[in-house]
């Protein structure tokens, strides 16, 4: 989902940067409030960031014959709320943009928007919906985080299609082409991300059930996911 450095027209780059910057500011405020209220959750915030670090470094092969990577932003979105992931995603993407020439500074805003804003909000929304429909905790986590991963790549496809509409077919033709590269490749990876997030939630529910209950992720009587 990394749009490469310089590969978005200037006005798109500025627009996405402004849009994402406001979410990062909102997210920093939300994190600060959360940590002031519950300082013991600081380590868990680190886990959310670390999970995104690991997963976004794993470039996995997919059935389309190309490689892509999960995003790992769903875990933190469920633990700390979707806006908290904007600053965390910014750290991950800055690391990759500055040291790895993976993504870039001019495309940071657009990449942040897909990975650290759209993805987390999808995760939180699907999770709430699935829990509301009385699905099990594990299934809800799986659906939320795998669809968040997939929607991140759908967003990237839309961003590129908007910036580079097809000369004949316009936005939709261009979107179909980019989505073939990004979204189809991502399907097995999104499943992997969902499964891995369930694994880490199982571990958290086993050893830190009180924290999850404090976050209202687990009802008081449901200790295990």
């Amino acid at each position: 989902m990394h749009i490469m450095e310089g590969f978005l027209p200037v006005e798109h780059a500025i627009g996405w940067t402004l849009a994402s910057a406001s979410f990062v500011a909102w997210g920093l405020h939300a994190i600060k409030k959360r940590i002031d209220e519950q300082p013991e959750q600081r380590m868990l915030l680190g886990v959310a960031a670390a999970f995104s670090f690991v997963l976004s470094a794993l470039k996995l092969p997919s059935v389309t014959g190309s490689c892509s990577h999960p995003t790992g932003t769903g875990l933190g979105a469920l633990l700390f709320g979707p806006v908290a992931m904007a600053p965390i995603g910014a750290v991950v993407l800055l690391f990759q943009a500055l040291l790895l020439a993976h993504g870039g500074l001019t495309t940071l805003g657009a990449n942040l928007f897909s990975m650290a804003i759209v993805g987390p909000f999808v995760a939180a929304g699907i999770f709430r919906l699935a829990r509301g429909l009385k699905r099990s905790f594990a299934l809800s986590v799986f659906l939320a985080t795998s669809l968040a991963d997939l929607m991140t790549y759908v967003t990237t496809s839309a961003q590129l299609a908007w910036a580079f509409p097809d000369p004949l077919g316009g936005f939709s033709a261009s979107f179909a082409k980019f989505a073939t590269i990004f979204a189809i490749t991502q399907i097995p990876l999104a499943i992997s991300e969902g499964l891995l997030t369930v694994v880490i939630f199982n571990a958290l529910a086993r050893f830190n059930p009180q924290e999850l209950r404090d976050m209202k992720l687990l009802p008081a009587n449901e200790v295990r996911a």
Partner: protein
Amino acid sequence: MKRHQNLLLLIAVVLLAVLPLWLVQKPAADADGKPAEIFAGADNKARDLIGVIAPDYRPWFEPLLEPASGEISSLLFALQAALGAGFIGYYLGAAVTREKIQREMAKQMAEQQEKPTRAD
């Protein structure tokens, strides 16, 4: 059962990553006889597609720092994954130990409470 579930989930993740390597056929060499690439990054494919849709587009900014080679780049990606995995391992390890200590303390408390009744 839980332990089983995690194991099965991890096996599924490994299968999802390994099966494509085995299922996807290497595409035939292109017209120039250059061997076709397989399992290239989707990001690069998107960049190539931009070149097809908008052949006149020129990127207007260059990365400030590029990894000197593919090896350096995989070093940095490995570092990124190791930092994250190390922290998660530390956190879970600490959580396991904390739970163990809590359980032992609860056991000791229970034993101490039992003693006086036995002495009676």
